[in-house]
């Protein structure tokens, strides 16, 4: 009986999706027709080779698939693209903008959404968006608690993991409190990237989550309760700072800079927002073979990153074609491959065909990558307003 139901279910899904495909196809075809021959300028953070190489591969595939020429504009900080769009608006350029697609999430997305700098909603026009797991992975439509409203299309899941070298450390600290104990026993070997670097702010969020009395407070905007809610975080950091690398007077500038410190043996831990990064860094010779990852006992922060199209993009159709390709099982499976990028997919396995699901099932797992079961609980991102104020307060306390 159960099997019958399953067959029926699959059949009906097939039928529905075919029907849906037939409905949207002419519309989508018009988009693709316009996209052909367009040169899409994708503004994406360019600080990591793993990501740059993946984007290079995407460029090759969308050229084959859609006849779109994809150019990767490498940013040091996503906010540069936000500012560029703004500069264009102040110069009165409402069409033919220089930015076609932005790799974006969180604070930058909120800024662009609030200032009406985005094109869309467009995600419902992408055929592959139907494959996204919006139920089990709610962060694909709630970006740092802000509804995406179809203005950005998800392309990857991030989760904070901790990296250590098992040749140096036999038992890494598995909670925020334990990290303080570790620093007391080993002064100068703990650090975190200086906010506003996103790995640094994520570490602060993680600490906040474990230290705060009532984590639910963090899901609504920060208000008058800011000082009381965040007090335990500042107490903790005040105690940790003098025990940190360079006595907390200097910080690595980015997460990758901290990974370099770990690789040099200068510090004991680094943090990554990509569960597979450590494995690919080992393969690249950027971390010792003995590097491993783990998560904290109470779970770690996770989120989704997206691509969005500015309101004045010159090549919106090409940008949509790229966004759609990024959601294809082929692109997502490649992104999940430990040697390529090694990140959790945004797609739902239940909504994939058997052949597509096999792409994911066959993936090897990197030597330092945790399995789905070992990844533990995922904590949601706090509302962006918390981070804005925490970054300011952090700068006041430790920035000078």
């Amino acid at each position: 009986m159960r099997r019958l139901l399953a067959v029926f279910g699959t059949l009906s899904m097939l039928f529905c999706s075919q029907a849906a495909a037939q409905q949207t196809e002419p519309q989508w075809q018009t988009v693709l027709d316009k996209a052909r021959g367009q040169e899409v300028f994708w503004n994406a953070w360019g600080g990591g080779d793993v990501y740059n190489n993946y984007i290079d591969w995407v460029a090759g595939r969308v050229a084959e698939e859609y006849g779109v020429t994809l150019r990767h504009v490498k940013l040091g900080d996503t906010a540069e693209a936000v500012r560029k769009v703004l500069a264009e608006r102040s110069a009165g350029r409402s069409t033919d903008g220089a930015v076609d697609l932005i790799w974006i999430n969180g604070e930058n997305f909120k800024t662009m959404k609030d200032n009406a700098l985005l094109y869309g909603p467009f995600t419902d026009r992408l055929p592959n968006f139907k494959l996204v797991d919006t139920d089990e992975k709610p962060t694909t439509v709630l970006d740092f608690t802000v509804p995406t409203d179809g203005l950005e299309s998800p392309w990857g899941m991030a989760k904070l993991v901790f990296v250590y070298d098992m040749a140096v450390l036999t038992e890494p600290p598995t909670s925020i409190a334990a990290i303080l104990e570790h620093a007391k026993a080993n002064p100068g070997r703990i650090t975190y990237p200086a906010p506003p670097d996103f790995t640094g702010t994520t570490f602060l969020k993680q600490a906040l989550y474990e230290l705060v009395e009532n984590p639910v407070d963090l899901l609504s905007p920060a208000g008058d309760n800011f000082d009381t809610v965040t007090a335990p975080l500042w107490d903790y950091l005040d105690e940790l700072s003098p025990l940190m690398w360079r006595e907390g007077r200097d910080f690595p500038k980015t997460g990758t800079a901290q990974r370099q410190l770990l690789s040099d043996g200068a510090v004991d831990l680094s943090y990554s927002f990509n569960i597979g990064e450590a494995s690919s860094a080992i393969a690249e010779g950027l971390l010792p073979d003995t590097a491993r990852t783990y998560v904290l006992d109470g779970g770690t922060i996770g989120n989704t990153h997206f691509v969005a199209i500015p309101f004045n993009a010159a090549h919106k159709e090409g940008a949509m074609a790229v966004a759609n390709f990024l959601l294809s099982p082929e692109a997502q499976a490649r992104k999940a491959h430990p040697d390529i990028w090694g990140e959790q997919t945004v797609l739902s396995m239940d909504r994939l065909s058997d052949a597509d699901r096999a792409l994911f099932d066959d993936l090897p797992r990197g030597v330092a990558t945790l399995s789905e079961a070992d990844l533990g609980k995922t904590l949601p991102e706090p509302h962006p307003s918390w981070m804005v104020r925490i970054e300011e307060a952090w700068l006041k306390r430790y920035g000078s």
Partner: protein
Amino acid sequence: MRFLPVAPWATLAIFLLPVMAGLAGAFLPAFGYLPALGGTEASLEPWMRLFDYPGFAGSLWMSVWTGFTATAISFGLAVGFAAAWRGTRVFQGLQRLIAPLLSVPHAAVALGMLFLLAPSGWLLRAGSPWATGFDRPPDWATAPDPYGIVFILALVVKETPFLFLMTVAALNQVREREIVTTARTLGYGPATAWLKCVLPLVYPQLRLPVYAVLAFSLSVIDVALVLAPATNPPLGVLILRWFNDPDLGYQFVAAAGAVAQLAVVAAGITLWWAGERLVGSLGRRWASAGDRALLDRPVAAFSLAGTGILWFLGAGSLLGMAIWSMARQWRFPDALPGEWSLMNWMRRGETLIGLGGTTVTVGLISAGIALVLAIACLEHEKRDGLKPTARALWLLYIPLLVPQVAFLFGAQVLLVAAGIDGGWTALIWAHLLFVLPYVFLSLSDPFRSLDERYRTTALCLGLRPSSVFWRVTVPLLLRPILVAFAVGFAVSVSQYLPTVFAGGGRLETLTTEAVSLAGGGDRRLIGMLVFAQSALPFLAFLLAAAVPAWAFRNRAGLRGLT
């Protein structure tokens, strides 16, 4: 040549209009005016926010302290070395060793020094664990350090060669040998004689270069991004951070910061000028006080040690980067890579060719345009019998004296409005702004000091002015012309901020890529970029020396000419 009379005006237009417009583009938002963001009324709020920004005072102090210290040390070393060692073999040797350092981009030196001097850097690797006992890097605050000392060192490594070569050029204009000989017969030691009698004559010509170095050091961004501490970075870094802040309200703060940066540079130059007065009057008293050689030994020793150290730092940092480009793994405390590999070069070859292509194209075109404009101005000056005025020189120096960050944001709005941002035109123009002054400076002395009788003779023999130019002036000046071109090319290769702003992210060069990777960290890739970045200008200078040697292989008389 109907183009000639227009040339000086065209040159000025390229420079001054955009700089002025760009400054306006920073001034207006600094006082609350930026309609796109809802700023339509004059207000002092951006300034309040600027002064209230946590760490603003610390950053301001960091800029002032590092800028002045770097300039003073560079100037002291360049002048001290010229005073103590002029006319010796050591002097000639250094001149030869130091010239290549001049052509290396600032960012390359900064990235190399970061690796050389960090606690996990090459210097400590070489001594660990046998001498230091470290098998893990110590928790020392070096490179970057909280006081900006490594940052200052990197600036000194780059600015001393510049000031040194400027001093050598200025020396050709005074009768140095006679003056020194006279002083020495009166019993003065060589360095004392030089400092008391030659320096006062040479300094007026060094003034503008020194101001340019001061302005640069007070506002530099690429070196600071690499080597300045993350907390309390120099002001320029903060301004760039505000421009990039996702909270668009910070645009106003950034504009106020840019104006503040301009004020810092203006105040810095004024202060230096006042310092000149003070040192001048003290120096006059010292010059006539009768002391013969008290300073000779310390000046000789310190200047030799200082230039030696900085040469070692410069060469060591570039060598370290070259080795990284061929490493697969290089862990602390190994003195050399544990695994070597050419994999980096093979895998990244395509990226490198792409970036190198943009770099070379922009460099060649901007240096070419600058060369044509500079020659046209100089030739026009010569034919019309004009005398160059000091004021004209000041105009030329304006892009070098106004901090880049102060006008580039405003200029970018202009470029966007003209619809040429992120394109080759904008990028080449932005580079030209900084390439042209150096090309002009490098060419003007040889051009003006060319013996007038060659021209006169050719004209008397019935040649038209244009033929005189092509058949007499150009061959005689081929070497300085090519050197000026190489200087322009090197300046273009090293540009960071103008490329970031005018390139709009669509056009990237080796320099922008290397700096953007500095935080991210694959040292092997950074090593390759630094190597390529340093090799290109070096090649240009090599060609500038080789072409005349080949062209004049049968002209003994021309080979000695510079």
